[in-house]
């Protein structure tokens, strides 16, 4: 649990209609064990949902804040 195998589940939740679900899913995605910038880029490329892409940007920017 918490490894890259969960990527699909978490990515699906990033398209949820509730903002908080997308937000927490985004945060979870960044924290998956073995997640790298490249893999994140790959996930991003696959995201069909504009809200999910926005959310990914949002959580990445938030994570970058010290």
């Amino acid at each position: 649990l918490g490894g890259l195998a969960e990527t699909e589940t978490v990515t699906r939740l990033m398209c949820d209609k509730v903002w908080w679900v997308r937000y927490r899913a985004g945060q979870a995605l960044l924290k998956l064990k073995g997640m790298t910038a490249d893999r994140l880029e790959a996930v991003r490329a696959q995201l069909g949902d504009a809200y999910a892409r926005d959310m990914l940007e949002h959580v990445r920017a938030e994570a970058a804040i010290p």
Partner: protein
Amino acid sequence: MNALRHALAAVQWGFLGYFVALNAVYLGLAFIAIWRLRGYMGGRSAAERVYSHLQMPISLVVPAYNEAATIATSVRALLQLRYQHFEVIIVNDGSKDDTLATLIREFEMTPFPEAYRVQIKTRPVRGVYRSAKYPNLRVIDKENGGSKADASNAGINAARYPIFYCGDADSILDPHALEHVVRPFLEDPSTVACGGTVRIINGCKVRGGVLEEVGLPRNPLALVQVVEYLRAFLGGRLGWSAINGMLIVSGAFGVFHRDTVVEAGGYKHDAIGEDMDLVVRLHHLMVKRGRRYRVAFIPDPVCWTDAPEDGSTLKKQRMRWQRGLAQCLWINRELCFLRGSKAAGWLAFPFFVLFELLSPLVEVAGLVVMAVAFAMGMMTGAGFLAFLLAAFALGLMLSTTSLLLEELSFHTYPKARHLLALFGVSILENFGYRQLMSVWRLHALYQWMSGAKIGWGEMKRKATWQQ
């Protein structure tokens, strides 16, 4: 001539009936208020102990337009509020001055790629900023929408928490305001809105946007408004909230359930009184959907606002309120006697039409008819005097009841001379002030009925507390 006499007599009886009904309702509300207040004060400290760790997170939405001079102080005061979990969202509504630059400089704001969702349509958002110093502070920079409603809606879109506060940038909140206002939401999850008592800041000592010492204004116009606000909030709204008939939550202080407000479409940008309009639409929405709901009110003095100190600003404000009331009641007339609307549609709405909207008309006409009757010799001097005295006595009783309520509960004004001054003013306001208000409101009613388009009316704010 005889027919005229009969007609005049009938009209007189009509006025008398109206007058008795009006005061009976007000007094009834005041008595409900006394009863409610006792229960509320009794449970207050216990509730705060029990709930202190269950506080719901709150989003504070504060629209700002051209407030460069005061915005930093206001935001600092908000950030100091005593509450566990809240966020501050300042909406810069396309200010033409340095409001945004000031915020960026004072709070180290940087652009942030926020996943902003548009649930209520507003003018375009130009960007979202986040503070490096305070993680719970954000600024939504948007194009000017020409109304507080549009800016508030953008803030509601950005709000993350289940309930939000919406207020003015220049109002001062009590440090414990959020602790008090969350109580109805915790006690009854079907609460969709909650208002609180607004007081007058003029004459109080304020430092850094925080109230330091309560005082009374020297300006007589502001002083009358202290009594007026006491009467309106402690007497009126507390009474209405007891029967879930509150149609107004003050624009200076209101807390709302976010999802319900989004469902109702947010604030209406073309409403003159967008605060009342929203609450009336919330009633309507919930009744139509057949859902149980509550519009609550807490009597605690939670918000302090600047009262106009000159006649012309006060006149503009009151005339705008009256036009807003007329517009709101007219647009939402469907709520009146709507099936299932209970006290809101069957009691509060007709009351507002009859006794708030039309009262200046009846009051002024009543005085004129009485005077004419007196001049024609149809009324004895003693009768005329008795009528005036009765009107005066009832007015005084209402004002002093509110003073009593305030003394029994919050005891905000610490000194005996404060109470004496307020008592004096509640006597004096019956000679001239109330009549003047009636005439202004009548004028506004006439303007609205004749369809005149009048702008928002620039408010001249003194904001002496900002130094």
